């Protein structure tokens, strides 16, 4: 039991990680050298209780000492209440906690704090209302856990109290993890498009204003969608084209661009990035080719350039036995839209190592086709996102569920968040 005269020392010792962090639930926040560990399991309850008793004892001893400051601990009777959020902020990110957890955690990159969770059961897709009022979750569950009647629906959650507003039933959806572009929202927030595969490919059109399923439209041989304002959706196809599905008229129509990539020899990653202000998508292939397409009824696709050559190293090759820098991971790149900077997860390896975790993040300036910075990164990340703040934060995660947040102004680590998740990372729009 510490003496009352040692209370500053006691406070310091509480701030240091004396509680062992062996528990898988211990959440560690780190900034620079300081570490705070909050235990969250039964196993840690007793260790924590010991500290509480020690603390209580210290206060008891302190309270007997003369001329001390008034105690700060509230002793007023209390009521249970519930926290609320603001609508999503540009400094926030949402990380799917993985295949076996049922939620996406919301973190603020400025404070490093966990703010709450959006319910995202296994293999669901999260999308944000462009106006920031709702979170939409495209889900599949069975009536009796792993059996019974299959149910596919889009759940609507209020972004402030996170309460369920509605479930919108629909005919089906593809069950796959790690994809950004299987559930997309039109920029005006009025329609949701859910990719379905049965295994024939189609799109479910959801009216998000009326909260009603509208129709299913076939999209043969294509997947990975982007909403095209006033038109419908565009999607990547197995013949190497970009298909555009016109949904605005009475009859839906599919047109296809000329093939511009090989879907089996040098595929374009499903998780392309969307820039609404420029009405463009930015695409990346396994060998490191960067393509952009300006969206519309007839999309215009740029000639590709090599990401590696943009960094002054040889272009990536699809040939065997070539060791080089390659892009990889699950969510392989992140676009800071206002500045046109693309951040790509890169690793040394050979072709067909496209799921490997990264050793470096390359910052590509899309306007000049130059890699302006290469950053060594810890944790072999397979997921990356960048907040759309004016002073952006880079967020990345590897398989061990540790999330790193880097301040791009300084290039330094701002936060290391243990057990945060290893699924898709979503960021809010710029304001």
């Amino acid at each position, binding site marked *: 039991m510490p003496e009352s005269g040692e209370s500053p020392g006691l406070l310091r010792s509480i701030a240091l990680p004396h509680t062992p962090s062996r528990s898988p639930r211990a959440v560690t926040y780190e900034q620079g050298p300081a570490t705070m560990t909050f235990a969250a399991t039964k196993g840690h309850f007793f260790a924590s209780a010991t500290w509480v008793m020690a603390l209580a004892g210290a206060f008891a001893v302190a309270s007997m000492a003369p001329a001390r400051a008034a105690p700060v601990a509230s002793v007023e009777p209390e009521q249970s209440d519930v926290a609320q959020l603001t609508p999503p902020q540009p400094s926030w990110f949402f990380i799917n906690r993985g*295949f*076996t957890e049922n939620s996406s955690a919301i973190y603020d990159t400025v404070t490093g704090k966990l703010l709450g969770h959006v319910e995202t059961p*296994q*293999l669901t897709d999260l999308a944000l209302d462009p106006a920031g009022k709702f979170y939409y979750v495209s889900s*599949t569950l*069975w009536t009796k*856990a*792993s*059996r*019974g009647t*299959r149910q596919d629906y889009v759940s609507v959650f209020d972004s402030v109290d996170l309460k369920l507003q509605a479930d919108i039933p629909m005919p089906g959806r*593809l*069950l*796959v*993890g*790690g*994809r950004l572009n*299987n559930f997309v929202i039109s920029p005006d927030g009025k329609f949701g498009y859910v990719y379905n*595969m*049965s*295994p*024939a*490919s189609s799109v479910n059109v959801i009216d998000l204003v009326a909260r009603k399923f509208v129709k299913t439209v*076939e999209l*043969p*041989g*294509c*997947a*990975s969608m982007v909403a095209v304002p006033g038109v419908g959706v565009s*999607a*990547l*196809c*197995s013949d190497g084209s970009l298909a555009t599905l016109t949904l605005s008229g009475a009859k839906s129509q599919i047109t296809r661009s000329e093939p511009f990539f090989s*879907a*089996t*020899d*040098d*595929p*374009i*990653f*499903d998780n392309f990035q969307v820039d609404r202000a420029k009405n463009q998508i930015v695409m990346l292939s396994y060998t490191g080719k960067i393509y952009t397409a300006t969206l519309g009824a007839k999309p215009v696709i740029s000639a590709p350039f090599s990401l590696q050559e943009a960094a002054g190293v*040889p272009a990536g*090759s*699809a*040939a*065997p*036995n*070539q060791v*080089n820098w390659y892009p990889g991971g699950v969510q392989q790149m992140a676009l800071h839209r206002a500045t046109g900077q693309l951040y790509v997860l890169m690793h040394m*390896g*050979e*072709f*067909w*190592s*496209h*799921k490997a975790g990264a050793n470096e993040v390359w910052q590509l300036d899309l306007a000049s086709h130059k890699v302006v910075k290469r950053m060594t990164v810890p944790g072999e990340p397979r997921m990356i996102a960048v907040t759309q703040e004016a002073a952006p934060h880079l967020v990345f995660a590897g398989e061990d569920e540790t999330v790193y947040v880097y301040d791009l102004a300084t290039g330094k680590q701002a936060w290391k968040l243990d057990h945060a998740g290893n699924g898709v990372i979503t960021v809010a729009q710029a304001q």
Partner: protein
Amino acid sequence: MIHFDADSLGEKVLRRFAGGTSRRGILARLGTALVAAPLFPVLPVSRANAAPAKPDRGPEAKTTFARGAQVTDNTKCDYWRYCAIDGALCTCCGGGVHTCPPGAEPSPVSWVGTCVNPEDGKSYLIAYRDCCGKSYCNKCNCDNADRETQIYVPQLNNDIIWCFGTQSMEYHCSTAVLVGAA
């Protein structure tokens, strides 16, 4: 609606691989070698420039996975047939390399891989059939990606839950069924 025909798909995939490798591949490599030989001596540093026009899918074109693959332990991610598997190995969940664990149901359709058997150096077509209808086994999780593509080529993508045509689409684990020589 398009009906999914596993036989026709298998045939297409086999023909594609067969057609994409031997004769044309050899001609392309021979042509490249003839052009490149005077310019680049046969040194490792020259290999990047001597790449054939098409990716080489032949057994001699070993990937990182194929070079490290083994044939004795099918509960390990580096077992040769697992060159494009993604998920929990059924061999660790009460099943086998082509056997679903008790109570699970094999999916009639699957994604496919072409893996090199280190014993004979030949390529074989592997059907990665998911076992379905039970909750996720979550043991011996592997994620190998030889010749694995994106979901717009679904039959070559290993992230998709392939429990189509089963009573429940709940994913339990994955098997690696040998279909035949590629």
